[in-house]
């Protein structure tokens, strides 16, 4: 498969037009909504910086409008780039033979190449977003009309005949429709029907009565814990609650009326009632009671196919698989943001220092020396204990301390290139500084970054996970691998949390490292070195 510039231009243009159309229609379609998300994040960063600088004004009053303007600008940029590829670019890529050789070599290193393809696959999966993982239904067919909640703005529950105006809870809607069995209505949920953040559903299980002993459905051991019956007319209100030991009633019993006031209490020993008192003079016994016995499964809950928590839930009841997915998206976003900022800073500052030398270099180096003595980790800890930083702000803070490394590499590379004969030759031919810098030096120094970047990626993922692990990272409503790890290591009783987070983290880091190794080897000037 070869992706010619023309094909790339067409693909980009198609994507941009699709995005524009969806944004115009107010829909958030996975993959096509990336400019919208980018606009929102950029807005957040801008506003946070503006607040930090003490800016006040009317323009900060409307973040939504600002974000949409930003995303339209981004879309326009994409269109320009795609038009460039379509109209101005040569029909084939014109890599120099050396680069082509390097790319070929990269492709021939199997392990790295496969890892690279898997990583791309992961990015693609992450882009599918709530098509795969989410609390909103994909399609709802209600009274002959189709709804697509996962792309549309919030649909209030009243649309589907539910008694509330807040967002529809699609899982319960599905359950309700399934119970009604009334013809044509149906709900299609994503494969993982839980949101990656702010979605901690209650899990209630109906218990089985096997000749007087209570069991969880399908379980071999009798039930231990608390279970309750509910009012058939008001399923949210428990009627009576018992404690069970080995499937028999044991300990306290409490009973309520439909208004939620306690009306009775009792005590059981091995299934037999040993004490009972009624606070309402015998009226409690007349209250209606549902036949079923339910129990609440408290978080964290072990993996369960029945409840579609494939990897269980975390301590607050959120789905672990959904959090992993959210964490993956988070990591990808963070990596891109981090790389763009640090590499840009590194190229600009390092390039300037290396090319112009003299005072600029001297001053820049002293600045770097001072800057690099600052204990980065502590500063991040202090900052995030004072304010609760949003994701982008946190990454920006990390970037502030991470541009030093790439800058020094870039400086050295530029220094070296500038003294080469070909630069002198171009200068003799009358090329200006800009042309020398961008046309000649930059392409020749970029190899430094190509080999450096794969090793910067694990750095940022680990830094972020580490901060989260310590509790100084992302806001608590964001999904994060670090927090899952922390929850897991604090609770070894729930191995599914820590093992999921650990596996995810290790898997991605290993892939990235494989790619890094392969890139390094491919770009190695000493061609016949073997890498072990």
């Amino acid at each position, binding site marked *: 498969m070869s992706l010619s510039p023309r094909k790339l231009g067409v693909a980009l243009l198609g994507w941009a037009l699709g995005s524009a159309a969806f944004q115009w229609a107010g829909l958030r379609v996975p993959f096509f909504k990336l400019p919208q998300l980018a606009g929102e994040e950029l807005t957040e960063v801008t506003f946070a910086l503006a607040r930090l600088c003490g800016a006040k004004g009317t323009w900060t009053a409307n973040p939504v409008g600002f974000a949409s303007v930003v995303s339209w600008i981004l879309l326009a940029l994409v269109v320009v780039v795609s038009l460039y590829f379509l109209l101005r670019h040569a029909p084939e890529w014109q890599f120099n033979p050396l680069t082509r050789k390097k790319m070929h070599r990269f492709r021939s290193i199997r392990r790295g190449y496969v890892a690279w393809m898997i990583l791309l696959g992961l990015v693609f999966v992450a882009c599918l977003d709530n098509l795969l993982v989410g609390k909103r239904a994909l399609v709802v067919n209600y009274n002959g009309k189709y709804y697509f909640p996962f792309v549309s703005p919030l649909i209030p529950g009243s649309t589907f005949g539910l008694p509330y105006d807040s967002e529809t809870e699609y899982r319960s809607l599905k359950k309700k429709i399934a119970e009604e069995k009334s013809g044509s209505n149906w709900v299609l949920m994503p494969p993982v029907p839980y949101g990656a953040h*702010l979605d901690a559903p209650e899990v209630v299980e109906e218990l089985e009565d096997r000749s007087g002993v209570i069991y969880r459905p399908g379980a071999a051991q009798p039930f231990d814990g608390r279970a309750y019956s509910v009012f058939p007319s008001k399923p949210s209100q428990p009627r009576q609650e018992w404690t069970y030991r080995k499937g028999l009633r044991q300990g306290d019993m409490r009973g309520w009326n439909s208004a939620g006031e306690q009306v009775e209490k009792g005590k059981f020993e091995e299934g037999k009632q040993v004490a009972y008192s009624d606070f309402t003079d015998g009226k409690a016994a007349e209250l209606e009671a549902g036949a079923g016995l339910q129990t609440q499964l408290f978080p964290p809950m072990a993996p369960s196919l029945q409840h579609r928590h494939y990897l269980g839930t975390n301590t607050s*009841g959120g789905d672990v698989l959904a959090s992993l997915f959210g964490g993956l998206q988070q990591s990808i976003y963070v990596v891109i943001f981090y790389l763009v900022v640090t590499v840009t800073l590194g190229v600009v500052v390092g390039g300037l220092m290396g090319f112009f030398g003299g005072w600029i270099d001297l001053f820049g180096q002293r600045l770097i020396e001072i800057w690099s003595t600052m204990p980065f980790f502590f500063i991040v800890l202090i900052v995030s204990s004072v304010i609760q930083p949003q994701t982008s702000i946190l990454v920006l803070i990390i970037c502030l301390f991470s541009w030093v490394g790439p800058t020094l590499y870039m400086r050295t590379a530029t220094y070296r290139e500038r003294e080469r004969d070909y630069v002198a030759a171009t200068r003799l031919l009358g090329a200006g500084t800009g042309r020398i810098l961008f046309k000649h030096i930059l392409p020749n120094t970029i190899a430094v970054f190509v080999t450096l970047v794969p090793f910067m990626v694990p750095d940022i993922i680990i830094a972020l996970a580490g901060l989260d692990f310590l509790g100084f990272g992302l806001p608590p409503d964001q999904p994060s691998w670090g927090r899952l790890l922390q929850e897991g290591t604090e609770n070894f009783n729930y191995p599914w949390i820590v093992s999921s987070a650990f596996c995810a983290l290790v898997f991605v880091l290993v892939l990235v490292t494989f790619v890094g190794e392969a890139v390094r080897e491919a770009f190695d000037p000493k061609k016949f070195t073997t890498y072990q």
Partner: protein
Amino acid sequence: MRKALWWGVLAASLAMGGFSARAEDDRFPPYDNTEEVKAFWKSKPDFFQWKTPADLPSDLKWENGGDLPEMGDPAAKKGGTFHDYIESFPATFRVNGPDANGTFRSEHHDNILITLVQRHLNVDGWVPGLADEWAISPDKKTIYYRLCPTATYSDGTPVEVEDFFMTFFIMLSPHIQDPWYNDFYAKEFKAITKYDDHTFSITIPNLKPDPLWYADLPPSPRHFYKEFTDDYPARYQWRKSPTTGAYDILPDGIKKGRSVTLTRVKNWWAKDRKNFRYRFNPDFLEYKVVANMDKAFEMFRQGQLDFYIMSLPRYWYDKAEIPEIYNGYIERGLFYSVYPRITRGIYLNQSKPPLDNLDVRLGVNHALNFKKVIEIDFRGDPNRMKSTFAGFGRYTNPALKPREFDVAKAEEHFNKAGYTKRGPDGVRVNDKGQRLSLTLSLPNLGPMVQIAMRLKQEALKTGLDLGVEALDTTQLYKKLDQKNHEMCLVGWSAQPPYPRFWEYYHSDNAWKVQPDGTKKVVPDTNNVTMTADPVMDPLIDQQRVAPTEEEMQRLCWILEEMVEAKAVSIPGWESPWYRYGHWRWVRWPKDGNLKNSQLPLDTYVHWIDEDVKKETLEAKRAGKSFGETLRVFDQYKD
């Protein structure tokens, strides 16, 4: 040559060492404030008075609480080391001033120190502390004490009447850098009078229903505070005051950053006295620094710690499924106690719009689903607090009820406040396009964030967006002190005997009116709701000085209703019990503990049974089981 070099290095380092030691001495030159203290006492003749025994009123009725039952169990055995843990090493051993109000202060000071009288923790009444007996004047404003003649500090120095005079010198001094004490000792005391070496009296300015709560004082050993001067916080940072209590920290008990060990005072003056003799039993109390609760639990499981508080469901349910508990090596207890509850709840800052709007506040009240928090995060064990004044017995208005989570009611109030539409994300907006979004600040501790997440998820159903800001405790309190928060999830440990309104709801602690008429926020007070109500203020002032229990109750009930009507303090959850696990060799009296205990250890009625310890360890080695033991003490359950 080489040897010479080594000697040189050694000499140099010795010189350095000598130099640095001298440098430390230079920081705190010896100081003697004896004359200064005397001059201070003389400068306030109305406050510090010296009289003769002949001046004592003759009609005094001396009391000594002798008819009250003994606290502690005669079966208690002395000896052993009790292993416990603290989450961080104390920042200072001072008991006032900067950083002194840490959690460890109660372990070495508040729970240990013996003051003049002590509250009986099982029945309603007072029993002797440093004072053998006491008498209350007919006007109930002056309390006379007779000091126990044998009372000494842990270093053997006798406790003298002047030591109580000294307390005022310290507590009124700006050098302690602790305005709360300055204010309290200036406002709540009127005079202290010495009659003879063992008799003195304390006078309080206002009538109180029970003056003994207020006229009690800790003594300040003058020989220890001799160097008290303007560098007090730094000079006394690591000096431990001799105590009148049973435990002292000796120099070899301090391993900085790692552990603190309290040692039982040899020949403690109160060791054979009633109410003391069967308490304070272990010889040593060792507090290891363990920063992580789960690590501490594992150490507890291994037997490195003797005791673990298991109030969180995680420990009580999930982590309790272990062989040590099945086999009865570790036993568990659940004790229903009677103590004012921590006022845990969400407080709304009325000075931050839109929280100045009553309808918004009412809406927020109905938008917080504490029921679900209790049901899921706490597994239904605690109760919803009825009000933030719960647990004060007759002073708690029984009519108070929390506003339950109710989407319809919340929506009604939000609509009234102008937030009528819902945005694309489900959050309400008003006509000006402002989102109904509030920031909830809370400590980044234990299950708090998880709770906030659940509240946030539920609040979204009503169209309220909660921004959750989990902060380090120091940062959080700084933020609250500056009143920069919008909503905060915090709790203060309530102090018996009466609810305190002045600190939390009086306008003095909210706004300061400048000479030019503008208002300025008063920082560093507990009025985090920024309540400033001209109707409430006079009532609060009256409540502060209410002379009788009836009057106190009446005013408390009215004020509690007014606070609830403002919808500024949303009660959270409360547990009328504490649950704990302990190795089998730690023993408590048959009744479990004392009625008014806040935690299992703070009454010091437990002891260590070395025989049982041996037996248990042997059984553990042999794999023998004693059977699971869970003790429930619900005799004080209401």
